[in-house]
């Protein structure tokens, strides 16, 4: 059993192997995350096929401009996460912390906009299932659109929260000097997770907000 103080675990044989294993493990996990979302994408495809007009009409109740802002925030934050990996490979811990904090700020901005959007939907009655009160649109199809909308964006938001926690943990680790040019596996692996959350949004955004 490895000792707590050293980040290098003995059973991997070599440091390089530990890094390979961590990355492989994360990629497999990301693959399974993709399949978690797939159900909702399939549901979206099926119900869009059943109710094409209602879905187009319903999407006009969403705030596409603000979603654009969210997209920009998220993509930029991904850039900062890439920079964090770049800096920690050079052992520059303070710069790493700085870019990670910027990324976290953008993530929080994203969630803030999302929360405000949810609030607007609440006022309008554009809610899932039995809470649906939007009268311009037929309930059959309309309530399904908003069910899928809340499920997709809600699941995404939960992943964002987890990913933000992860980045916060990386900030703490970088501040306490745990990560160095030698040892930076968690930053790389955590960065991968952030990119996954980013990529999900790049599918959700056009499907819900843009497609007509």
């Amino acid at each position: 059993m490895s000792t707590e103080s050293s980040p290098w675990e003995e059973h991997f044989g070599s440091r390089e192997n530990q890094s390979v294993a961590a990355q492989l493990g994360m990629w497999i996990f990301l693959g399974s995350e993709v399949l978690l979302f797939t159900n909702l994408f399939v549901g979206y495809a099926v119900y869009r096929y059943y109710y094409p007009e209602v879905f187009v009409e319903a999407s006009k109740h969403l705030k596409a401009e603000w979603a654009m802002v969210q997209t920009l925030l998220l993509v930029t934050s991904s850039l900062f996460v890439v920079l964090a990996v770049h800096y920690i490979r050079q052992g520059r811990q303070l710069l790493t912390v700085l870019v990670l904090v910027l990324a976290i700020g953008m993530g929080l901005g994203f969630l803030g906009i999302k929360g405000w959007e949810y609030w607007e939907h609440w006022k309008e009655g554009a809610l899932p299932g039995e809470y649906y009160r939007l009268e311009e649109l037929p309930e059959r199809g309309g309530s399904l659109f908003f069910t899928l909308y809340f499920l997709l964006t809600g699941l995404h938001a939960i992943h964002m929260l987890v990913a933000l926690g992860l980045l916060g943990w990386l900030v703490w680790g970088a501040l306490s000097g745990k990560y160095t040019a030698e040892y930076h596996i968690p930053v790389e692996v955590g960065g991968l997770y952030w990119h996954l959350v980013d990529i999900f949004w790049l599918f959700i955004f056009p499907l819900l907000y843009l497609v007509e």
Partner: protein
Amino acid sequence: MNPAAGSNQPAVTYLNHETTVASWLLTRDHKRIGVMFLVGVIFALLLGGIFAMALRIELLTPGPTVMGPMTYNRMFTLHGVTMVWLFMIPAIPSAFGNFVLPIMLGAKDVAFPRLNLASFYIYLAGSMLTVFGMLWSGADTGWTFYTPYSTVSPTTVTPILLGVFIIGFSTIITGLNFITTVHTLRAPGMHWTRIPLFVWTIYGTSVIQVVATPVLGMVLLLVTAERVLGMGIFDPSRGGDPVLFQHMFWFYSHPAVYIMVLPAMGVITEVVCAYSRKNIFGYKMVAASTFGIAFVGFFTWGHHMFVSGQSTFGSGIFGVLSMLVAIFTAIKIFNWVATLYGGSIDLKVPLLYVLGFIFLLMFGGMTGVAVATTSLDVHWHDTYFVVAHFHYIMVGAVLMAFLAGLHYWWPKMFGKLYPERWSFLAAMTIIFGFIVTFLPQFLLGNMGMPRRYYEYPREMQWLHVLSTAGASLLAFGFGLIAIYLLWSLRYGEEAPMNAWGSRGYEWYSGSPPVPHNFTEAPRFEREVHDYTVVEGPRVY
């Protein structure tokens, strides 16, 4: 058995190097985690078995026997839920896979030991939530949770859905861990073409676990959301489609059959080689057929939906794809038989279970081809024929392999021998009991007895009585096994290093193994189960 041979067991083993309760509960040793999983799944088997016996006793007479219809509905639901999710899916990969896979690869541990421990606790938490739901009032939806009924049933479905969802994470983590372990932790000399076939099957299973389980998780969450928040995604009154649930559910749950059966096939391969003193007849074909089954398994889910209003063309395609599974399975069966042929056969108890396994798999597999035929399935759909078919293939395979593995690796895990005669008697009882339990159910199904029914016409009673008699034999057999295995832990003869003279790589380490599996790094210089080279016992 030579008692003096016992003296070469290692003095410090994974069992005795630390003995406090905390050292078990917080262990990161894959062997201890494997043993904890073993205890967990055996409890699940016991619980599911009690439910099964209750069902069989109820069906002794055509009318009410010992319980009311609602209790009966709950019983078959809980039997299915417990057996599928708490026992069969984790049984072989999480218990035996955890124990022997790293040793077979010459690794000190799995890639992520902490995650491995987490996997056990997630399994425990999910199981406890599920059992809590069962005790609270139990669900009456059947283990498949079909919508729209599962969204409106007044029973406590929600905790059970969430419990199964949580267990899914344990499955994903275990799969992820094994894949990474196989890729990164093979010892020198362990090429891809030397990996033991048990490891190959666990690897194939892990791929299915990682790919399919999230789909199940999501669909269970959707049903939960529908129950709790009235989301309406499968609700026809809001425009939803209940058949979509079936597609999503079976996209996971059909491959889940292979999560159960593939590791069983892996155990069988190891045991066949060990007791016929030969390496497997066609190593590459057996390994490749594992992935054939895993791959094709993802394209067969529609055969559960032949009568759901799916197009005839779609049903035809799903039927043909389903039959492909039989080809890959046949490759394995022919290879086992070819390995036994001309082998120096030692008919010990694990090999007895192998023979039971081959019979049940053949019978279950061929009835599988029959129900994959659309025209026949319309007749047999949702009858006892299907119940008998999937009990033969899933339960028969998993139970036989589980018991074969349990006996084969018992000396490896605990350093004790089990009593040979008692175990022989138990194995015969179990194999015979299994056939007597489920063979009549094929006949019942063909006569038109629908599954999940509480009552039946009097003409069918003799077959039900026969089936219950078989189930009682099974219960007796399990009781016997429980008694002699517990007895052997305390009073059993000490096992020698390699109780069976097996050439499987896991016997390179001590029996029971030392804490980090090996005292020095093992060298793999021959193929696994190569009995042609002369070598003394090698223990690293």
